[in-house]
């Protein structure tokens, strides 16, 4: 089983590395790009400084995708997420959920406080 997984992973990495595999590399870049639209509120890489709004990093892909679809379909209470989720296609929501599931959970990094001399 393990060797099969390694072989599948190898095939993906090889494709991404070769000229013929630019489509895969582009998919990965696009998933990151779409997930990055969420960082603004949920933190860099989905690691939320202070935890509100919630961190997305390292969450289960199925859970994230289900939550996003429920927001979109008005089946989950929301202040703003129902409005954002409607902006993305099923494939985009899946790519976003997959991206955050693949990021290691951890605390967000706050901007360093400074004094302005006021």
């Amino acid at each position, binding site marked *: 089983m393990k*060797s099969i997984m*390694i*072989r599948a*992973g*190898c095939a993906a*990495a*090889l494709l*991404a*590395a*070769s000229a013929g595999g*630019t489509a895969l*590399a*582009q998919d990965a*870049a*696009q998933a*990151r*790009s*779409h997930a*990055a*639209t*969420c*960082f*603004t*509120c*949920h*933190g*860099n890489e989905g690691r*939320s*400084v*202070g935890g*509100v*709004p919630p961190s997305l990093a390292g969450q289960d892909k199925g859970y994230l995708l289900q939550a996003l679809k429920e927001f979109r379909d008005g089946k989950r209470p929301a*202040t*703003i997420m129902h*409005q*954002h*989720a*409607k*902006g*993305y296609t099923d494939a*985009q929501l899946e790519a976003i959920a997959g991206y955050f599931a693949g990021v290691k959970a951890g605390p*967000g*990094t*706050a*901007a*360093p*406080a*400074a*004094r*302005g001399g*006021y």
Partner: protein
Amino acid sequence: MTVNRREFMKWVAATTGAAAVSGCAGTGGPSAGRVVVVGGGYGGATAARYIKEWSPDIDVTVVERNEVFVSCPISNLVLGGNTGMDSITMGYGGLRARGVRVVRGEAVAVDAAAKQVRLADGSTLAYDRVIVSPGVDFIYDQIPGLQSAEARGRVLHAWKAGPETVALRKQLEAMRDGGVFVFHIPMAPFRCPPGPYERVCQVADYFKRAKPKSKIIVLDSNPDIVSKAGLFRAAWNGLYKGMIDYKPNSELADVDVKGMTVKLTFDDVKGDVLNVVPPQRAGDIARTAGLITANQRWCGVDWLTCESTVARGVHVLGDATLSASAMPKSASMANQHAKVCAAAVIALIKGQPVNPTPMMMNTCYSFVDGKNVMHVASVHAYVAAEKTILPVKGAGGLSDKPSELEGTYAWGWARNIWGEALG
């Protein structure tokens, strides 16, 4: 065939020469390219961070005139006495720790032919790509009474957070109870569409608490409240009933600083504290660099890359851009421009394809008092057939009403967007 991961990576590297597969090319290796970012605000600092994070082998230098970053979002709360300057003031140490060079100075020229940026001290920075993120500067041409520094020191805009925020707060504190605050709003587009109306709420919140006999006169050049109109009207007619006199279509003619009067085309309005926000355009360096393409005010860009439509290798971000349809001049939007631009700049430097379908999302929160907040949201997707980015139909919208829950999300938004730029 079964191979372990290490052997496989060696093989991939040997057969394809793809160093990138083994992860980030190490720092200390040869530079893949040089990017100079002019302006360390929401657009510039965020773009610098992501270029470095996503491609550590690119040298990134930010040129910023101020020693610290002061956030415009949340700064209205300082005017309302609901937070202090320390909560919106941050340093560039985090960005430096990430390997971004931050140069304190003033960029005075961008030479697209020679590919270099010149600073006020005469030094130059060479680049492969430059990102210009200068924010806005003010247009005073049509306001004869505000030509001198002395006049501008008395009638403030406080539309860039910093010393003017503090000074306007002091003017409000010094005003007598029963005084009149007169606030003039320019014709859209301007930085932060809901910002003026949030400011009215914040000043009203302060007056209600500390100077309940005082009044606010809002002179708006626009025919109606530009953003969240129904929500702001509800707050003014509810929380602040009887305190706010809103006058739409109030085009500014002049300001009489000595007489403390805002002069409109057909009316004069006297006050104890005047706050006049002049019309705006892309920041000075964008004009000097010849990047302004629309109405002598804004910089046209290709929304796939944020590259200027008139200068190759020069990208423009944030409020300085000629906004696409329904795109606000907001911190959220500048942050989203920055990430699209960062990815595109990396791809262009490395000869890789640029993401053909970038998306951007906007979230603007407004505080009606110290705790209750409402939002406007939108999602924007690139449409190849139109060669621009357009709002996604059916997405986005407004709060039903202000709430404390959204107040916690607004502060969370602030912490996270600040963390992205500077953390």
